[in-house]
């Protein structure tokens, strides 16, 4: 009797000791992951320090990348990242919003799930396979049909000068547009679905058509979520590496023509990593640090904007 009581008591005592232990163990694991990330950021900046102190501000403003003379800068790649991301947003975001509207507002219920799944699968295709597809299947179409056509109507602008060979900033931008569609479409769709039905009912009861309801009552309500979705797409486009490396043509130059090859921050790292050493390696890491901060700012803004909806971001996405 006494021993039974004693064992019960000790079990109680043990449990009260084990509870905070478990609590703080899981907490320390979570915090350790964050601390590790912080340490790695510092380590990365440390590895880039040689280049940071050697080139100083010139690194971001000059356009010279010359391994032979050991002079490096990031401007051509920042430029390339900006142009390809801009193309991706211009093509990808309107398409994604159309998809989101169809899937959330217009589609018959039975078709929503399967269509959603198919669009979602776009995020599951690995980046390197997008690149492979773009190199061998998309390129002939771009080179023979799309680019001559664009040149015939827009050839007078600075953006479509020269001859396109299907391996250029336009190709990279188009493949990026396809790759951001699942992200932007899913977050947009979630923010549309979060619009209360009373909004729709109010508009419908006033005699509005589906289209008018969507435009007046739903889209205005979901605006900020969709804007956040677009920024999230931008974050994805900025950091995408493999598909861009395989399609952009890898030329370290600044040119306004989308039919010229270029290079992005991510692709220059992927391309030059094998032969990089010394100052060049440090310069590549500095480009990585710049990319890190750009991606951090873009993603934090997007996360703050989409708020609750953010759980819907596809995570199956093939390698960014």
């Amino acid at each position, binding site marked *: 009797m006494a021993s039974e009581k004693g064992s019960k008591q000790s079990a109680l005592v043990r449990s009260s000791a084990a509870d905070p232990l478990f609590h703080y163990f899981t907490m320390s694991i979570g915090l350790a992951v964050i601390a590790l990330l912080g340490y790695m950021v510092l380590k990365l900046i440390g590895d880039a320090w040689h280049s940071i102190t050697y080139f100083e501000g010139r690194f971001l403003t000059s356009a010279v990348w010359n391994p032979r003379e050991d002079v490096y800068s990031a401007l051509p790649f920042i430029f390339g990242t900006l142009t390809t991301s801009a193309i991706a947003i211009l093509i990808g975001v309107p398409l994604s919003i159309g998809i989101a509207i169809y899937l959330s507002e217009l589609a018959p219920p039975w078709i929503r799930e399967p269509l959603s799944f198919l669009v979602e699968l776009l995020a599951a295709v690995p980046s390197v396979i997008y690149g492979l597809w773009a190199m061998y299947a998309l390129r002939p179409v771009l080179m023979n049909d799309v680019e001559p056509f664009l040149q015939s109507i827009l050839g007078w602008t600075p953006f479509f000068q020269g001859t396109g060979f299907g391996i250029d900033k336009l190709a990279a931008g188009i493949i990026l547009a396809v790759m951001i569609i699942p992200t932007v479409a899913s977050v947009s769709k979630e923010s549309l679905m979060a619009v209360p039905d009373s909004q729709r009912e109010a508009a419908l009861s006033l005699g509005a058509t589906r289209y008018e309801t969507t435009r007046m009552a739903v889209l205005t309500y979901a605006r900020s979520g969709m804007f956040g979705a677009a920024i999230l797409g931008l974050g994805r486009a900025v950091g995408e590496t493999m598909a861009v490396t395989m399609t952009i043509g890898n030329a370290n130059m600044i040119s306004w023509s989308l039919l010229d090859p270029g290079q992005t921050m991510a692709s220059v790292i992927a391309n030059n990593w094998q032969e990089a050493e010394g100052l060049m390696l440090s310069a590549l890491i500095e480009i990585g640090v710049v990319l890190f901060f750009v991606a951090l700012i873009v993603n934090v803004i997007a996360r703050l904007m989409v708020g609750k909806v953010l759980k819907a971001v596809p*995570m199956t996405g093939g390698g960014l």
Partner: protein
Amino acid sequence: MRSYKARKFKNQLASLLAFGCVLLALIPLVSILIEVIVRGLPAIDWNFLTNRTMSSGNPESGIGNAIVGSVLLVGWACLIGLPLGILTGIYVSEYGNNWIGNSMRFFNDVLASFPSIVVGLFAYSLLVTVVGFSLISGAFALAIIMIPIVANTTEEALKMVPNSLREASLALGVPRWRTVIKVIISNGRAGLVTGALLSIARIAGETAPLLLTSFGNPFWSTGLFNPVAALPLTIFRNAMSPYADLQQQAWGAALVLIVMVLSLNVIVRLLTRSRFKNRTKAVNRKWLAKSRPSV
């Protein structure tokens, strides 16, 4: 006031336009699947799947070492990433209703959509500078990509466990930590498996971080501290090569990789569907929207 007919026409036009967007977005998907099957299937035979990668012109060349390398990388990444991700998810779900939990959530969300090449750089500066290009640094990079995905899905899965179960267990005098392990985790098990599969599908196709860390290797290699081959790396290098036979092998490797990744996604899909068949549609929709990447 515009006429009813004009408004109706506009309505139908808009519906058609929106449907056109969906079709346009699906063209690449269908085209990729067709191209990969049509161009990849002729490359695949027993030798291709079991031999190691050789130089151009050698018909015996294969992707066996890349398949083994990918399995090893993913396996080691799971060993590192799954426990860390699941424990973080447990904390955030069970104890995380405070600023610590909220900031962990935020960090994980930001990390989840981070460029993977930056993660590759992290792993490079932390491990490759010490041990060189190696299997372990590649696996470490993949693990970092995994952690936020696993933590998020774990949190969502555990939140789905009804509170009445927690209360029932605590009322029986079971300590909280045993409640978490015995009651909550075993009830949220399917969700944990889903998260693990999703993260595996994601990291199996990662290329950029491997380029910076595990580097690739034309030979058979299983050592933790040696460079190791991987399917995505083989696809990349062969696709960029000027030789037709190597490009053909890239398509074959792409077919193997895409079958692996897509079947994982379909399995996850089936798992999440069958579990909630009996619930009302509203609950189903709400849950799916929260826990599963959906469009």
